[in-house]
């Protein structure tokens, strides 16, 4: 893939493979190849669409990576580091009684 920067220069960029798992879905994991500057929020929304779930006023879903919640404003580059892939889990934040 190539991207054009502000100076108009075209340069190649690598894509990063992302995988999002959500065990209580009829569908398998969400997989995509995304540019490194894609935010995790964008990946979360695409994964939720894949799994046919959505945020409501009562609860939300978050992406976790290595067990920790990942804010929506992180980029895939920040999460993946030097790796060419990043794995996430989609977690529903449950209400408490």
């Amino acid at each position, binding site marked *: 893939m190539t991207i054009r920067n502000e100076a108009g220069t075209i340069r190649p960029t690598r894509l990063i493979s992302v995988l999002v798992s959500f065990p209580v879905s009829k569908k398998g994991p969400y997989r995509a190849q995304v540019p490194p500057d894609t935010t995790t929020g964008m990946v979360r929304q695409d994964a939720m669409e894949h799994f046919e779930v959505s945020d409501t006023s009562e609860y939300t879903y978050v992406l976790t990576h290595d067990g920790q919640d990942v804010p929506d404003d992180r980029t895939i580059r920040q999460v993946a580091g030097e790796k060419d892939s990043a794995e996430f889990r989609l*977690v529903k934040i449950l209400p408490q*009684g």
Partner: protein
Amino acid sequence: MADYETLLNLADDEAAVAGFLADRGGCLVRDQADSATYWLAARPASAPQETYYARVTWAAYPHQPPSIKFADAIGGSVTVTRAWPVIPGYRSASQDICKPMSAEGYALHPEWRSGPDAWPTTGNPFLWLAQTLQHDLDNDYTGRAP
């Protein structure tokens, strides 16, 4: 005693749970006396020296949520307050998890039984439960109950 369908469904799903917990430094043990009861050992990311033991007892898998109690060891007592982690919704005093993930929680909140908080029955709910417990330990844990 759980029915045969429950035991077969648990047998199908338990390997993924065991793999997940092992990756996080924990383990899964099936109870020797009751095949529908499992002991999950898990550690908070912020306190890996602390291990918590959840006894998960299924009545009808995957159709109903399990009873969840914390114990002082695998196969140990489930009446020890200090066996519980301090996490919002995890109530050591009443020894229940008041969230839509346990039989105790659904008993306290019948309104959760339908709608968005209903118990999930598709995919691998056992793995979902283990991941939810681990997520709470990793992100909302503040210590061991007094």
